[in-house]
Each structure stands twice: as C-alpha cells, then as structure tokens.
C-alpha cells in the first residue's frame, strides 16, 4: 500500500490526522440521515405510488395532491416548517434529526412514488389481466405478481433518487445538525484550508453515495435474475423517464 502522503496533498493527511474524529461524527450523521431518510422515502414512495394507480379516484387525487405539494415546494422550507413552526404550533417538541429524516423522506418519497407508479404501469397489461382471470384479490395481485416485476423496473430510478438523497442530506446544515457538511464548514471557519476540507467532504459523500448505489444495484441484479430475463432497456428507461417527467 502506497504511503497516503505520496498521493494526497500534505494538508489532507494532516487534516485527517487532526480532525478524523470530528469528520467521522459528521459522516455518521450524514449516514443516519441517508439510511433513515431513505427508508422513510421508500415507504412513502410505495404508499403514494400504489395510491396513484388505485381504482378509486379519491385515492388517486389525494396521492396526486401530496406528491405535487412535496415536489412543488422547497425542501428547505419544508424542513424549516417542521423544525421551527411545528414545535411552536404543537406539543411534539423539537427533534431536529427526526424532522430532517421526515422532510427528506416525504420529499424524496414524493419523487420516488412517480418511479413506483411508472414501474407498476410498465408491467404489461396482460399480466394484470391474467391476475384478474385467476380471481386474485388486489393484495395477491400486487404482492405476488405485479410487485416482483415492477421491483426490477423501479430499482434504477430509486437508485438515482437515493444518490440524490445522500447528497441532499446536506440541508441538515440549515438547521444546525452536525452532519458532514456542517462539521466541514466549522473546520473551515476554525482555520483549516477550505480546499482541503471540502475535498475530503467530496470524497466522503462520493463514497457514501457509491455504497448505497452499489447496494441497490445488487438488489436490481437479483430482481432481474429472478425474472429470468434482463428487463428490456426500453422498459427501464420508460420507468425512469416517467420518474423525472
């Protein structure tokens, strides 16, 4: 293994040596926000995505309104409302980390629901019709036949969103949570070279996003293998395109 100092600028090694503890604490908060935010976002995406294809117009409309609200308004403002307005208006108390997880979950979940909806719709109509011809209940249809096929289609889109969510956790800075961005900023203010601090941050964010992405890609390959075929690129692209439309 080559000496780190031979491939990295001297300041980087020094900064890591002096502040690794602080940086690690920041990374921990960022990872917590990513994991829990991602989990909440996934649940929100599935619920809103299923609601979007409901037979009941009311359910579809409610889902649409929620999605449009969270996609159409600023995440930062949503976060401020949760952190600064909610505790005043109600007795829920102040839980910045929890509120940040919820804001991330709702926001990215709203985007994710479009991926889920698009993927469910991309499962061929013949598959849906066959489940009806076999008299399956709605839950059985979805759980046993449609979801496993849609799952393979939605993973690329969810993967993109997860990468964005990891980077998006930096909004924690706005409410004073000591995440990676926040501790980096403090280090800069305390006199550490800005280039060095942000360079380290870049790399850590990149590695975190890469780890989540690789995990989801692993799930995708598994889901595809289960279908015995690689879902056509067109279908995957269609599902993803609907997500960003």
């Amino acid at each position, binding site marked *: 293994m080559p000496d780190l100092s031979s491939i990295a600028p001297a300041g980087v090694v020094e900064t890591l040596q002096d502040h690794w503890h602080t940086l690690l604490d920041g990374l921990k908060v960022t990872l917590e926000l990513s994991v829990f935010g991602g989990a909440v976002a996934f649940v929100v995406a599935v619920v809103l995505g299923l609601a979007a294809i409901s037979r009941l117009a009311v359910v579809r409309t409610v889902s649409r309104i929620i999605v449009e609200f969270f996609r159409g308004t600023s995440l930062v403002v949503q976060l401020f409302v949760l952190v600064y307005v909610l505790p005043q208006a109600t007795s829920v108390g102040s839980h910045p980390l929890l509120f940040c997880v919820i804001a991330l979950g709702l926001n990215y979940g709203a985007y994710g629901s479009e991926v889920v909806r698009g993927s469910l719709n991309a499962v061929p109509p013949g598959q849906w*019709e*066959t489940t009806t*011809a*076999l*008299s*399956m209940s709605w839950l059985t249809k979805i759980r*046993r*036949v449609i979801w496993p096929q849609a799952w393979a289609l939605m993973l690329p889109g969810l993967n993109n969103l997860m990468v964005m969510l990891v980077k998006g956790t930096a909004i924690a800075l706005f409410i004073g949570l000591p995440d990676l961005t926040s501790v980096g900023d403090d280090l800069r203010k305390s006199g550490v070279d800005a280039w060095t601090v942000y360079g380290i941050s870049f790399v850590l964010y990149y590695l975190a996003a890469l780890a989540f992405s690789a995990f989801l890609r692993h799930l995708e390959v598994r889901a595809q293998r289960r*279908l015995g*075929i690689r879902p056509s690129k067109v279908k995957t692209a269609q599902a993803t395109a609907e997500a960003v439309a």
Partner: protein
Amino acid sequence: MPTDKTDGAGAPDLSKQSGAAVQTGPDFDGNGRPRIAFEDVSKQFGKNVVLNDLNFNVAKGERVTLIGPSGSGKTTILRLLMTLEELSGGFIYVDGDPLTHRKNDAGKRVAMKPKEISVIRKRIGMVFQQFNLFPNMSVIENITEAPIHVLGQSKDEAREKAKKLLDQVGLGDRAEEHPTRLSGGQQQRVAIARALAMEPEILLLDEVTSALDPELVGDVLGVLRDVANSTDITMLLVTHEMQFARDVSHRVMMFDAGHIIEEAEPDAMFSDPQHERTKKFLQAIL
C-alpha cells in the same frame, strides 16, 4: 333440447348429435338456468358501439366457437365475461347469477360490488393469445399460485394437482423450469394448465394458437381436444383453426359488427353456410 351435451357424466358425445334441430335458444338445467346468458348486452368504447343489445345463451357443458371478421366483437365478448371490460348496458348471468350488474327490486340496473363479482368470476377461467405466464415464478408456481392464494389450497395439495395437470399437458418434466425457457407452444400449454387448476366451470379461449409458430399449434390444440373430451367444462372459443372448431364445438356463432348473423352446428355452418357474409368469410379463411 339435446341433453347429451348438457348433463350427465363424461364428455358430450358429438357423434350423438342429431343434424336436426340446431340449438339456438337457451339450454337449461333442472333449475332452468343456462351456464352463460347474455341479456341485452351493450358495449361501447367511447363513441364506437361494439355490441348493441346482444342476446345469447350457452348451455352447461356446451362448447361454442365464435367466428367472424376482425373487429366484430369476439374478443370483447370474452373479455366482458372475464370482467376485463365493463358492460355499457345489459346483463351477463352465470348459472343464473348476475356477474357484474343486477336488477334491483325496482327493476333498475345496478352495478355489483367487487366482492360480489369476484365470487361469480371464480367460475370462469381464460387463456390468452399471449400466454401471459408470470416471469417471476417457475412453471409449477405459475400453476399453484392462484389455487394456493385464491382457493386456499395447501401448498402440497396445489403442487400435486399441478403436477397432474402438467403431465396432462405433456410437460411433467418441466415443472421447476423458468417459463422463458419454454417454447411458445409449451408456454401456452402451461397457461392452459394454470387456468384449469382453478377448476373453472367456464373456459374462455381467445385465439390461443394465433401467436404460435405453425409447427407448435398442433400440440396446443391436442391438449384442448383432451380437455374437451375428458371434462364437461363449458367453453367459449375464438379460433381460426376451423378443423379444430369443427371437431370440438357443439355450435358455431358467426358475428358481424357485434351481431350474431348466423349460428349452427359446425358441420352445417362450415359445409352449408346460409348467410352471404358467412359464405364470404369462410371462403376467405378456409
């Protein structure tokens, strides 16, 4: 009323059918109920009126082939029965029970609840042109899925029955394979086994060999002949295989623009069509 094809054990014997009275009206069981009854059925897609006040009955155990030019409404009729399309007007009865709409006490037409519909729908099965096997399951899982999760059979019971069905369609050795590894003809035979596993009273077959390479058609038709000969499942089939239709069906109905313009026993229909449109149609496809 020809009883030979309605009740009793075993398959209706085609040879016993007299060439005389062709059955056009309802054929009733002891309760006076046909297996399938269409009553003033209408269906339109937007402004396109596909079916307009269609009336016909199908007796228990009867096998009826629908023929007619493309767009004449044959698929729509099957899909209405399978509840894949919604009726625009009229009623469909299965064994006298309304399928999707009923008349209330005041004689008004009301839609039934999904729960009520699903009870009647369980009596009906369908095989599609495109097989539609579930790609996330093995061959045998495709067959056991609905019996386990809809009929509540135990896994062992469902698998045992599925194995018998697979043997019956000549695929006993392919149970654990992935459906995409099967040929089209094999996939369609699995689809037939899957439909039969639900033990339907009525089986709907919509051009089930049309998507197959010619050399694979024979096996699928062979399986269906077996089913026809060994069960008394009521069948409604759309096919371009006229010899097959002639062999297995009790009655052929010729459709044009959503109307039955002629119906007869297959021999009569194919050798001596009465209607000008039927003659033209049969000439074109035979």
